[in-house]
């Protein structure tokens, strides 16, 4: 982290970049939030640790509208999102200075209250340690780092950045699960069970739009879910159709463009496993139209804007 901060100060002081897009310390260890740092002094709040799960790619759209270059820190998986935005002409590569940072898997505070660890008051860990120290009302406990990792880190896309100007730090391989295992489990259910499963999950949704707002693929200037009636943002006006179909529509809108960065599931305050929708599309696309990873390059045609003469007929991939 010190290394990143020093490098950011250096670039900011030399005038090569006008601002730094990074993570800012919060009140608690886990309250890290994305932030633009405009001056060297403000960088004292900069932080990079296990709680920096936030994907900064989407903020680069905003940064592109400002004067000068922006220094941005991207983890390997974030760089896929950035590349996808680049390909969609939503960000300006000329106005970005990208430092690819190492990642050892990111933590989710909401995963920690398990195994009798209740009333969590704080959590911290020494940089290299394998274990996480959790302060609770009933004393300090330790949790294996792996057990508190975000879901997406268990199916990590790898240690390689797909776009960067320079690299800092080491990454480790954190894969220990099958990316499509849960999707397959649901596919094997009966229609009644599938419906019961999704109804249980989706009925928790409060339509806060956090998943949409954080999603790098959901970056349309005009969104179908925005109110047209009052020109007020977001949730002021929704029809019952939107209410019911929100997640299906959203998943379809990002199908073929979703890099599976897992931000939707990370930010959902209700803990809905939203990545299951996106992964279903990714799985089908991979099976039917050949393996495709959105954001991995700038040339390959996206599966939904492409076709072959002998594509599978609808109904083939089902069941």
């Amino acid at each position: 982290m010190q290394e990143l901060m020093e490098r950011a100060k250096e670039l900011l002081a030399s005038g090569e970049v006008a601002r730094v897009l990074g993570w800012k310390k919060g009140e608690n260890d886990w309250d890290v939030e994305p932030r633009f740092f405009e001056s060297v002094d403000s960088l004292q709040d900069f932080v990079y640790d296990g709680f920096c799960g936030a994907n900064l790619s989407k903020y680069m759209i905003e940064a592109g509208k400002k004067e000068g270059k922006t220094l941005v820190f991207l983890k390997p998986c974030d760089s896929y999102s950035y590349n996808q935005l680049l390909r969609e002409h939503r960000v300006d590569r000329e106005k970005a200075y990208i430092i690819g940072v190492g990642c050892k898997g990111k933590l989710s505070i909401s995963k920690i209250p398990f195994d009798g660890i209740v009333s969590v008051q704080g959590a911290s860990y020494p940089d290299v340690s394998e274990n996480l120290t959790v302060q609770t009302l009933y004393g300090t406990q330790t949790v294996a780092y792996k057990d508190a990792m975000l879901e997406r880190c268990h199916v990590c896309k790898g240690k390689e950045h797909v776009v960067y100007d320079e690299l800092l730090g080491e990454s480790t391989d954190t894969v220990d699960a099958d990316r499509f295992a849960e999707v397959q489990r649901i596919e094997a259910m009966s229609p009644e069970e599938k419906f019961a499963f999704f109804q249980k999950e989706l009925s928790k949704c409060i339509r806060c739009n956090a998943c949409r707002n954080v999603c790098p693929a959901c970056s349309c200037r005009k969104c179908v879910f925005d109110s047209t009636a009052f020109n007020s943002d977001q949730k002021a006006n929704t029809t019952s159709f939107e209410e019911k179909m929100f997640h299906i529509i959203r998943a379809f809108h990002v199908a073929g463009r979703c890099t599976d960065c897992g931000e939707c599931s990370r930010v959902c305050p209700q803990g809905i496993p939203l990545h299951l929708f996106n992964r279903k599309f990714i799985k089908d696309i991979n099976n039917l139209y050949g393996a495709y990873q959105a954001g991995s390059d700038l040339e390959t045609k996206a599966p939904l804007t492409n076709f072959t003469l002998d594509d599978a007929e609808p109904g083939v991939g089902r069941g």
Partner: protein
Amino acid sequence: MPVTENWKPTIVAFCCNWCSYAGADLAGSSRLAYPADVKIIKVPCSCRVNPMFILRAFEKGADGVILCGCHPGDCHYSTGNYYARRRMTLLFSMLDYLGVEDGRTRVEWVSAAEGVKFSETMNSFVEKVRGLGPNVRLGDLRCRN
């Protein structure tokens, strides 16, 4: 709605202007019968069908939705149905994943000369949906009614 012997499903059929709608026309002028439960919506091309149309049809009470277009290779706009094919493949797979039985959705390529195929397709599709009963799933996905 209780499923009774007289229950009739509501079927929405999206038909492309150039092939399938003409096919339906031919079925009519050839005096071939197909169930009156099928409500045909004419679209310029099968590719015009936004996935939201399908969802909207289900939300408004359709028990089954079928999309008919020109045979691959015969699209009036050259390639429209190829895109539609990919989209519908993914959407219908997703609906199945959510618990909407795959019998409720279907894509069939019907040309302007295939009046018989149109009538047979509609008969078999309606029969299939009748067997599945009313669709309450999509409208109820978030326990909203």
